[in-house]
């Protein structure tokens, strides 16, 4: 949706709410609750499809006024150029403020150490928490979905974090009806997941229905890639290839956007939304399983990272 579109005087047809309408309405409701109850919310925005949908919903929730929150990008420094370009273009288009928490800065001044494997997704937690504390953010919107992973399946839409950003799965608040409890003490904050009840396919169908623009890497294109741990990684300045990893030019697309050193592309010919939706519908692998090395590390990898304050 273009925020500059003038108000249409034509009225729309009234039709009963379908599944996507209900998911949209729920997400809009959540955005408005947070705007009403918190002082300093922020939207995590990576330029990936989930956070782009999140931002689109926020724009709808407050239209015709601008979104009353800034955006926060936890930047691993291992980005695909197309994604950063898209991020900046989107921020400008909606006239929003972008806060960048840079993993590279933390490595440069010694607050974080590069991991031996060069993977930076796990390093995002410290800059994220630091940015939340220093900006006094009290509500942090994330694009997490419960269908992504089984530890996420138990997370609330309003997920309370202590002063250390930690998630305690055994002490979650019961979440009743659509009455969200955002109460928190000074220093605590709440992670808010408006897309909790969406599936990957819902996200794609919604992108299609709303004609939401995405970074080009989500669609099939030719790219120089190499294979590591069964995943296709982009040959780039930060993460390889090593000498034993031959580079090939293949037709691929990305299913998720993440740190380039551990987010893989999939071989795909799906070059438009219809084809992507067909591919996602037929896929026999979860998007994280297919493309995220860090989630493969252990049975409870996500649970452990969430306990430490990860997204």
């Amino acid at each position, binding site marked *: 949706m273009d925020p500059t579109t003038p108000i249409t005087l034509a*009225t729309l047809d*009234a039709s009963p709410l379908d599944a996507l309408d209900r998911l949209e309405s729920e997400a809009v409701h959540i955005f408005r609750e947070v705007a009403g109850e918190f002082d300093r919310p922020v939207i995590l925005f990576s330029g990936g499809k989930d956070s782009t949908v999140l931002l689109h919903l926020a724009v709808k929730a407050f239209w015709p006024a601008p979104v009353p929150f800034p955006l926060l990008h936890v930047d691993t420094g291992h980005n695909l150029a197309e994604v950063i370009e898209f991020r900046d273009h989107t921020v400008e288009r909606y006239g929003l403020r972008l806060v960048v928490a840079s993993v590279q800065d933390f490595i440069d001044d010694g607050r974080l150490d590069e991991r031996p494997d060069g993977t930076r997704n796990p390093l995002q937690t410290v800059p994220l928490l630091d940015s939340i504390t220093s900006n006094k953010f009290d509500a942090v919107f994330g694009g997490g979905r419960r269908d992504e992973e089984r530890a996420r399946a*138990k997370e609330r839409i309003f997920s309370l974090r202590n002063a250390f950003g930690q998630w305690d799965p055994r002490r979650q608040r019961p979440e*009743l009806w659509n009455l969200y409890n955002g109460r928190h003490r000074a220093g605590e904050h709440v992670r808010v997941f408006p897309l909790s009840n969406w599936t990957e396919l819902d996200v794609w169908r919604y992108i299609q229905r709303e004609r939401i623009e995405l970074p080009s890497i989500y669609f099939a294109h030719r790219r120089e890639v190499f294979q590591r741990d069964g995943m296709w990684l982009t040959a780039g300045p930060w993460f390889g290839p090593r000498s034993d990893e031959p580079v090939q030019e293949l037709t691929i697309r990305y299913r998720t956007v993440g740190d380039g050193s551990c987010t893989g592309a999939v071989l795909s010919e799906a070059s438009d939304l219809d084809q992507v939706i067909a591919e996602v519908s037929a896929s026999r692998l979860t998007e994280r399983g297919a493309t995220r090395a860090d989630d493969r590390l252990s049975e409870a990898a996500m649970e452990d990272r969430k306990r430490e304050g990860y997204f």
Partner: protein
Amino acid sequence: MGSSTRLDLLRLATAGSVDDGKSTLVGRLLYDTKSVLADTLDAVHRASVDKGLSTPDLSLLVDGLRSEREQGITIDVAYRYFATPNRSFVLADTPGHVQYTRNTVTGASTAQLAVLLVDARKGVLEQTRRHAAVLALLGVPRLVLAVNKIDLIDYDESTFEVIAKEFVDHATALGYPIGSVLSIPVSALVGDNVVDRSAHTPWYVGPTLLEHLETVPVEPDPHDAPFRFPVQYVIRTNTAEFTDYRGYAGQVAAGTVRPGDEVVVLPAGLRTTVERIDTPAGGLPEAEAGRSVTLVLADEIDISRGDLIAAAAGAPAAVDEFDATVAWLADKPLRPGARVLVKHGARTVQAIVGELSSRFDEQKLTSVPDPDSLGLNDIGRVRVRTAEPLPVDDYAVNRRTGAFLVIDAGDGSTLAAGLVGAGLQVLETDRGGTGGAQAPTGTPDLVSPGP
């Protein structure tokens, strides 16, 4: 809109007693609808082999937390998603044994249908009856009784019939109309009648569990009820295009609104009419329950977050004292005179829980008058006094505007689920036939349709 087909959304909850095999049933539903993808399944196969099992343990698909897998139990409500070509499902999987009230109330609060499990060898247990009572109290409009482990009683029809009849009688007594309850013989472990029809139960002619979930009418939100709209946020902007724009953002909680409708703003009681229903895609001719919209009103009156815009005809009274049923969800007990916060719609106010008039006795399925306190998982009848008036509806009439949260003013934790009115007699209807139980205090409240 492209080629995408319209899908319904059904929200359902599951509940069952210990070892009824609920995680296995949910795992089976996901597995047989191909909602589990190969990498997840590989992980389950590996973990099953590690546990020395010869077939995959489908419960591992749903026990998400490490402590759950280690202890072999489900601790917390988990949400699961699956879809068929016509319908998407949001499933709240509620554990049956640990903190059953807390979890069942959470899962049931938004459910349009609940699946209750019993073990065919054990039949309807006391806990099954309590679960059904809590589901009735929370207004879940439809129930399915999954009589599980039917393979372990050699697919015996007469045993199934006895269990089904006992349960349907109980549900009817709780206020469930005929046709809103269905019993299905299943084996989650083997897969009988979950997704695929079983060859072992030729005597069962009803739908499989999935067929039923796919075809059961999705109860509409109450469209024809009086209009209710809690104001969440005031949208203001002043641009060349939108001069002094002032719109009231919220989700229609009940009824339908159209431009020109006369409305009243509560608690102040000021009247005006609806000028427009705004969405970014254009104005709507009407907005029904469940839709998030922005209302522009004809007159400039002072409205802020927490106010309720309601149909001028059939508006609720704003009251500062009301009877309610609370399901107590915190370790810290409720004592008479407790000072708390109450969140109703988009408004949070200070409140005092006055007298505790009765507590539901889970064991006897009766109520105990004048309890000293309510503890974790207790359900009781209380009197609530609020610092500011609230425009409440009876929960039995409206699940949205009849519901409230009780919040600890100190640490912000959620203490209880509150239901305005919602007589405990719903829970007392079935009293298990034990002597000495007191007589019912009234007729069962009817449960309202829709989430």
